[in-house]
């Protein structure tokens, strides 16, 4: 080492290079680490800046879009398409496109829980549209649209909008008619004299003119029912129909509750009038409750009742039933039962329905076929609340749905085959066909009156058929008979009785024994067919058509042939047993059965469109899905959607009439008489203050195809003086998306 030091000390080489290398290395490492850290920060800053630029651009674009329509009424559901706003690219700022969607429209708005119009009439024939009857002023809170006419005939003219003593309509919103508004001044354009809109409302009567834009505003929204679209319902097979409800929910009987003061019904398919399904214990109950669910009162259920009463007996009249009807959740319900006492009904100062409104529970009543609802007087009230149905089907809170299309499956005439060979102790051989074909394959039985005293008599021969095939559950049976192909030999004075025995059902689906005695058949040695009508004992005819609920009733049919054959007689003998007279052999008969056919004509379960059938009620002979007469109390907290049907709504005295989420019908006749004590109460309205639907708009900002921001905004178009378009903008939600 000392040598190296000496050598190192003598040479002339410097140490500067090594020192520099060491220095540069250490310095470089430290500096590069710091620079790298700073560089990362710079890059992050750039990325953050770019992201922030996009978000700020999206924010700004939405602000621009909000202001772009602030001064118009665009965004009202009835105002047509909402324009798209584009913020052009500038420098490093990207182009932003903001779409504008009026919520609550039928074309995909996310608040599709109410119609566009308080009244939308779709009928285009003469006499159809919106007809104001009576002689008293009526207010409609919300716009109205008639695809034909708006009429206010009869009664005096109005002096102005505040004049109650006249036959006029005042609309809080727009009033549009594609037809004529009558009466009118005769001027062109049409100026109606009994139709008013509040300040700012559009009033247009086209008198048959063509206006595609306006016509588009009154299109049938085509709402589906809570079960699906009419087309999808129509496509259901009988089995699928039953699956929708469950076999236990076909004409399910009511349940007595609240000390027999309330009859609770459950969602289901009803072919029977409800009065036929009330247990005897609560026959005098004043209230029928259409519960949202069979099992629970917990909010969240929307009960669907499909009513398709039999043709000719399809008018559901609350007055005839002498009942109040409540549909929806009842606040006093606990568990699955309603507590004692019924909920309060609306008064002159309160329109609160007896059911819980505006939550997720409620009912939807779907009317098919000739089924319609009538409210005749103040003693029998109607209160129905809608619920929010499955959003995947619809958001509309429809409470009364008139099925616009669909055809019940065609009637079927069917021979039901027995599933097993017949059984009998009298007949043999038992090789006859299983009830279908007359093939001269007879089962033979010998009958006899028996020996003296009737000993050994065989007067009845019975053939039992069993294990019949089923027909679709829930089918409406229109005919049922037993056809027996047979021949007999018997004394001419001894007619046969053919007795068919089976188990029938009562109106609740319970099994009861029944026998149909088809008597009076005369023995006939030729092969012939006798028919025994089974329908009368299948069900009491006062309950309407018999609805098939499985083979409970017809699983076994026993056909008995009975003839009153005389037994052998010994006669009277004299002379020690000689000279006997009057002795007779036993009467005998033979029965040969070729087949026993059970024939049932039925209509499989299915959905069918509401049928317009004229009927006389409420001093009206027209067809309607709903009629109300004098003094009705009608609180319908939901939408009526019956695009092919007519409604007749009467407003009288102090009795509350309210359809609070609009009606979509073919035609509506609105009758308000001078006895109306509630002139300022709108019998038909939409939710929202002043009757105008809220102008709520959803803005969506997109940059390069990616949604970066969304906002839902409500425009308040009124100030203290009444109207100021774009007066205030409320941001309901604002969402930035990264």
């Amino acid at each position, binding site marked *: 080492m000392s040598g190296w030091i000496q050598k190192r000390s003598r040479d*002339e080489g410097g140490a*500067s290079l090594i020192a520099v290398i060491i*220095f540069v290395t*250490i*310095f470089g490492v*430290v*500096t590069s*680490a*710091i620079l790298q*850290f*700073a560089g*990362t*920060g710079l890059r*992050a*800053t750039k990325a*953050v800046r770019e*992201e*922030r630029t996009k*978000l700020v651009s999206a*924010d700004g674009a939405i602000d621009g879009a909000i202001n772009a329509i602030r001064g118009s009424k665009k965004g009202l559901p009835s105002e047509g398409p909402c324009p798209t706003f584009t913020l052009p690219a500038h420098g490093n700022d990207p182009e932003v496109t903001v779409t504008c969607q009026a919520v609550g429209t039928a074309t995909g708005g*996310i608040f599709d829980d109410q119609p566009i119009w308080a009244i939308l009439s779709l009928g285009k024939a003469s006499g159809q549209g919106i007809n104001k009857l009576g002689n008293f002023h009526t207010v409609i809170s919300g716009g109205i649209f008639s695809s034909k006419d708006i009429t206010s005939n009869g009664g005096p003219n109005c002096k102005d909008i505040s004049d109650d003593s006249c036959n006029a309509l005042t609309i809080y919103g727009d009033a549009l008619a594609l037809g004529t508004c009558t009466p009118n001044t005769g001027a062109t354009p049409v100026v109606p004299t009994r139709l008013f809109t509040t300040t700012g409302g559009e009033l247009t009567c086209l008198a048959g003119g063509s206006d595609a834009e306006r016509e588009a505003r009154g299109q049938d929204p085509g709402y589906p029912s809570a079960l699906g679209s009419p087309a999808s319902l129509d496509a259901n097979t009988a089995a699928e129909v039953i699956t929708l409800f469950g076999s236990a929910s076909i004409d399910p009987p009511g349940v007595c509750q609240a000390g027999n003061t309330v009859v609770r019904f459950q969602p289901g398919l009803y072919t029977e009038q409800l009065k036929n399904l009330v247990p005897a214990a609560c026959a005098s109950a004043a209230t029928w409750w259409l519960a949202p669910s069979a099992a629970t009162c917990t909010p969240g259920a929307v009960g669907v009742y499909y009513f398709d009463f039999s043709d000719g007996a399809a008018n559901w009249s609350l007055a005839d039933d002498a009942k109040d009807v409540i549909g929806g959740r009842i606040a006093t319900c606990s568990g699955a039962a309603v507590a004692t006492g019924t909920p309060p009904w609306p008064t002159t100062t309160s329109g609160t329905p007896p059911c819980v409104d*505006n*939550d997720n529970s409620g009912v939807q009543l779907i009317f098919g076929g000739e089924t319609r609802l009538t409210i005749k007087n103040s003693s029998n009230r109607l209160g129905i609340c809608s619920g929010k149905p499955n*959003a995947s089907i619809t958001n509309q809170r429809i409470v009364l749905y008139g099925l616009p299309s669909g055809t019940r499956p065609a009637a079927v005439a069917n021979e039901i085959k027995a599933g097993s060979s017949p059984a009998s102790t009298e007949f043999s051989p038992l090789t006859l066909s299983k009830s279908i074909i007359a093939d001269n394959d007879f089962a033979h039985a010998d009958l006899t009156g028996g020996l003296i005293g009737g000993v050994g008599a065989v007067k009845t021969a019975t053939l039992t058929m069993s294990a019949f095939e089923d027909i679709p559950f829930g089918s409406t049976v229109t005919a049922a008979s037993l056809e027996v192909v047979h021949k007999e030999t018997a004394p001419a004075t001894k007619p046969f009785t053919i007795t068919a025995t089976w188990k029938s059902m009562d109106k609740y689906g319970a099994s009861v024994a029944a026998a149909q005695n088809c008597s009076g058949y005369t023995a006939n040695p030729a092969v012939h067919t006798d028919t025994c009508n089974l329908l009368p004992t299948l069900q009491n005819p006062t309950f309407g058509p018999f609805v098939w609920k499985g083979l409970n009733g017809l699983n076994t049919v026993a056909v008995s042939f009975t003839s009153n054959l005389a037994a052998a007689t010994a006669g009277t003998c004299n002379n020690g047993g000689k000279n006997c007279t009057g002795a007779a052999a036993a009467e005998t008969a033979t029965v040969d059965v070729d087949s026993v056919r059970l024939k049932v004509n039925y209509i499989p379960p299915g959905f069918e469109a509401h049928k317009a059938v004229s009927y006389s009620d409420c001093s009206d002979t027209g067809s309607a899905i709903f009629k109300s007469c004098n003094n009705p109390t009608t609180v319908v907290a939901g939408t009526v959607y019956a695009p092919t049907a007519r409604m007749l709504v009467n407003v009288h005295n102090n009795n509350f009439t309210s359809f609070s989420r609009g009606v979509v019908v073919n035609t509506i006749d609105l009758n308000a008489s001078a006895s109306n004590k509630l002139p300022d109460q709108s019998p038909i309205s939409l939710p929202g203050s002043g009757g105008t639907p809220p102008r709520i708009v*959803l*803005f*969506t900002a997109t940059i390069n195809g990616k949604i970066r921001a*969304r*906002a*839902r905004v409500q425009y308040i178009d009124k100030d203290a003086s009444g109207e100021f378009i774009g007066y205030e903008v*409320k*941001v*309901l*939600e*604002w*969402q*930035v998306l990264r």
Partner: protein
Amino acid sequence: MSDTFVRERLADEEGMTLVELMISMTLLTVVLVPIGAAMLLSLVHSNGIRDRIADSSGAQLLSSYFASDIQSAGNSTSSPNPFVGVDTSGTGSCPALAGGDNLRLRVTTPSPDQPSTVSARTTVIYYSHPTADGYELYRRSCTTSSAGNPSLLVQNLSGATGFTATCNPIATCKTVNATVTMYNPKSVGSSGYTSSTFDFVGTRRTA
């Protein structure tokens, strides 16, 4: 300096003169001293510089998220299911926090296209997370159907409560004031580093 002089100077075997040596050493000293000082300083203060950069970056990230999160917050009385748009309790749609984590802010944003659908709401939480060296501030965005990965916003959080957010006014929480304090005890004194404090203000857009 002619070519002859150079050739002679290169050819001879003489070393540097004293003058030359002094000049070169002087020059070397002039150059090396500041460089050495810089190196010394960098070695001494690198931690502080690093933490300042980290604090600045964290504050920048936080500002980027915080403002838009508060801007999107729902109001406190939205129907039909009232909820609190800005809160400091509960993790909403996000999973429960791990032990030691400390929830500092929760922002609930209803979706404008499904405003009444609870499952469509987005929950954003800010929480402090302990590490071996102190605390960090994380942000996590969740819905009922998916929980996003936590994002690290701020290192060197001064403690579990190093990030605070308060409503103004308390009743409506229209504005949210937030303060974040960052502090790394290992760097204290380095380059004068003590701690960093940033204030933020976010304003809710909803009515």
